[in-house]
């Protein structure tokens, strides 16, 4: 099977992978996670058997890297004796604040909301990326939105 040159993937999906990572883990760590995502993809690429859904494959990797960063951060927060920041501050109604709230959602909801609204992914792609059923993908988006609505006012 002939795989396209890797640069093709990077040109086509680089920006959206970066957006997804900014949405889920924030701008500070997104650059690192971006490199990690693409290096992992590059490492595995020649062994890929199916070139049919490269975008889904990439987002699965990006999703895993985002999860790694999220876990690392929770671990270091616990190690530093910090409490998870659950307080909702007086939130102004702008984009940045909405995404700050998204980043406080439980990981599955956060990833699902980011995929749905930043990537414009359908539920099939969300479920494939996150390794869940489509039903669970719908529920994660729905629950995420519900929680955002109570916090965002």
């Amino acid at each position, binding site marked *: 099977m002939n795989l396209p040159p890797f*640069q093709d993937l990077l040109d086509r999906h680089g920006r959206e992978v970066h957006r997804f990572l900014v949405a889920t883990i924030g701008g500070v760590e997104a650059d690192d996670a971006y490199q990690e995502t693409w290096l992992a993809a590059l490492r595995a690429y020649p062994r890929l058997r199916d070139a049919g859904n490269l975008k889904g494959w990439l987002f699965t990797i990006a999703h895993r890297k985002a999860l790694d960063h999220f876990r690392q951060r929770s671990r270091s927060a616990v190690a530093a004796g910090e409490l998870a920041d659950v307080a909702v501050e007086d939130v102004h109604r702008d984009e940045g604040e909405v995404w700050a709230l998204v980043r406080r959602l439980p990981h599955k909801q956060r990833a699902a909301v980011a995929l749905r*609204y*930043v990537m414009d992914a359908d539920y099939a792609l969300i479920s494939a990326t996150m390794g869940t059923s489509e039903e669970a993908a719908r529920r994660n988006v729905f629950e995420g939105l519900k929680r955002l609505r109570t916090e965002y006012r």
Partner: protein
Amino acid sequence: MMDELEALLRGGVAEPDSLPELGPAAAEAGLLDVAYTVEDSPVGRLLLAVTRRGLVRIAYLGGGQRADQVLEDLADHISPRVLAAPARLDEARRELEEFFAGRRQRFGLALDWRLVRPGFGRRVLQATSRIPFGSVSSYKLVAGEAGSPRAYRAAGTALSGNPIPIVVPCHRVLHSDGGLGGYTGGLDRKTALLCLEGVLL
């Protein structure tokens, strides 16, 4: 129905002006099999590609040859780990610039011959790479040097498939009667290169 929250979410997140560059990290991790860049030159746009072994491809772009075709070819024949990584081509770019400026007559670049099957064709190109700056040879002579003086047609075929023109100077091979013969980048480019070397006026 879309409410205000969904509208904000659809507005997306801030985009950086430029994305982090992958080439250096990929090279450091040993995952960069083919690095390439596209450069302007006095003989038109060139795509340059290197592997860990050396320069593997110089492609004339335009005139029916597109960069994506060249890259697909590299992915198929070498490795799909193909990335734009201009810094990996610094040395090749510098030597070519010097050549076009008339300050360099010999290339010191390591070459990767893997796009040419071993055998007569590769021997023809290797014989061609020994033709000095400013001189010319013939299809018959390079065929002879490759071991079959009568196979000058096959030598022409091998030269027309030269994956590393300019550096492997197939432009220095002419017909024994003095005719220009063919050229992988078109005869205008062959003429320009021979003028640059002072062979043609």
